[in-house]
């Protein structure tokens, strides 16, 4: 089966389950948003796909399958072939992902040579074409530049060019626009949207607005679990989980409605209470909420709530 399927994925650090059994799937040509605040496990979930987890974290359960291949059992060698090949990755800070002493064009060309055995001149030309395709002006000259000589927006474009050079079937984007100015952010989101014509895209963000702009579907994470997963339009218009509704109510709006704060701080996986993790902050919580939360069909998507419905929607 083509596309990505994640089942029961768990990510742990010593003594704590950071991602607590998530299920996700994404088909080629679709963009899935993974939205949450700090500690929600959104980035760890993403990084466990190409097994790029930070030291100390490991996959402790579940499966990740890409086009039928189980990645949790893949060898390091197989994974190296996949990363930058079948799986493109874009991080928040392109400066950290681009070797500062290498020219931008060489970095992109090298990926094409390593994965597809292209000749140096063919790879160089592809790199220039790739930079042009992501809207870098004067790509021949920029290909000879070092990463620090590009603006933040151009670096992010260069990183996208590098992630797309081998025509991946899966593009993973971890907060790729968080450090960018608003006007540049929209341009980068449009580029990622264009990339989704071939690939399935997972877009990790804390910003429900950016997710609404880019994604076909959104999964909202809280304290290491998915609390709601629905088509974008219905998730925004009629959020079923109280956390989604609360997140929406505090996301900046243009209609003059004041942001409505959620009491307390985001729950970290270390302090996850029994039952629904959002329970201590939830206006709708009842005694049933200490039961195990399960993602069930509500509205047009899935929600893990004992009292679902768009009750809190702004």
């Amino acid at each position: 089966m083509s596309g990505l399927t994640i089942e029961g994925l768990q990510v742990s650090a010593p003594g704590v389950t950071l991602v607590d059994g998530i299920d996700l799937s994404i088909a080629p040509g679709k963009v899935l948003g993974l939205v949450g605040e700090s500690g929600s496990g959104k980035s760890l979930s993403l990084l466990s796909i190409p097994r790029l987890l930070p030291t100390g974290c490991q996959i402790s359960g579940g499966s990740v399958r890409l086009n039928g291949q189980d990645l949790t059992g893949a060898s390091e060698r197989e994974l190296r072939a996949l990363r930058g090949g079948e799986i493109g990755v874009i991080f928040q800070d392109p400066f950290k992902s681009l070797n500062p002493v290498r020219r931008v064009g060489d970095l992109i060309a090298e990926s094409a040579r390593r994965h597809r055995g292209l000749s140096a001149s063919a790879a160089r030309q592809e790199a220039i074409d790739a930079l042009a395709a992501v809207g870098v002006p004067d790509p021949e000259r920029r290909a000879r530049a070092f990463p620090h000589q590009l603006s933040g927006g151009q670096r992010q474009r260069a990183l996208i060019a590098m992630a797309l050079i081998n025509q991946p079937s899966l593009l993973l984007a971890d907060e790729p626009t968080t450090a960018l100015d608003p006007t540049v952010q929209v341009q980068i989101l449009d580029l990622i949207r264009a990339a989704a014509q071939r690939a399935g895209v997972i877009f990790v963000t804390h910003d429900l607005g950016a997710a609404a702009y880019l994604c076909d579907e959104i999964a909202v994470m809280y304290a290491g679990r998915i609390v709601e997963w629905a088509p974008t339009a219905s998730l925004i218009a009629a959020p079923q989980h109280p956390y989604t509704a609360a997140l929406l109510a505090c996301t900046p709006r243009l209609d003059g409605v004041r942001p409505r704060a959620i009491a307390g701080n985001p729950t970290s996986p270390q302090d996850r209470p029994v039952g629904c993790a959002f329970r201590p902050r939830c206006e709708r919580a009842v005694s049933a909420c200490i039961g195990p939360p399960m993602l069930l069909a509500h509205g047009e998507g899935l929600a893990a709530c004992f009292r679902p419905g768009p009750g809190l929607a702004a």
Partner: protein
Amino acid sequence: MTQAPLAALQDVSVRYGAFQALRGVSLHVAPGEIVGLVGESGSGKTTAVRALMGLVPISEGRATFEGRDITHLAGGARRDLWRRMQMVFQDPGASLSPRMSLADIIAEPLRAHGVPKAGAMLRARELLSQVGLPADAADRPPTALSGGQRQRVAIARALALEPVLVVADEPMSALDVSVKAQIAALFLRLRASTGVSFVIVSHDLALMSQIADRIVVMRNGQVVEEGPARDVIAAPRDAYTRELRDACLDPVKVVATRALERAAS
């Protein structure tokens, strides 16, 4: 403008060597007003508030505070001024000593201005509750605090000397969305309870439209638009303001626009 400004810049230019950071910037804040100073990186918004605070040398134009020209104020007089105007930064972590209790941190400016210890500590506890931190936090060090709680401490400390103006430089941009909304609500509550004025620097036009009375938009060291928040959002006069507004990804608006586009095609 119905009342005399509390603080203002008039045609202010600031140069850093050959680089002109501000070109003829005028802005003002009235007593009890919240002004949102919005712009992207390199727009000069941080330099503008630093000029307002007297923290950068002004090469042309003038800065006034409470009706007084403060453009070229000398050391001692400037320090007196900083009792009346305070600043809050994006990440207060670095300015909070891990060896001091929260009460000590907040009481420090009071002690520096000669308030006796007992009185200063009492006031520190009041301030903690005013910014929404639990009373038992007073004796704890700042190390265990979340980003939002650290920002509350920094705000409490800024308010300790009862300033009339607090300038906050990107105070919410490093915070989680839900915590951002808490701090936004705190600014509104403090303005209502103390009458303090705020100038809030932000790259987030949507957030500023929700809490500021007036918005000033900057680009390339100049003010391109200024007006009541509602007008700036609903009917921006400047093309760049419009671009900035259209780049604000309000999820409800984004989804509604998408639905309209789909219906049209």
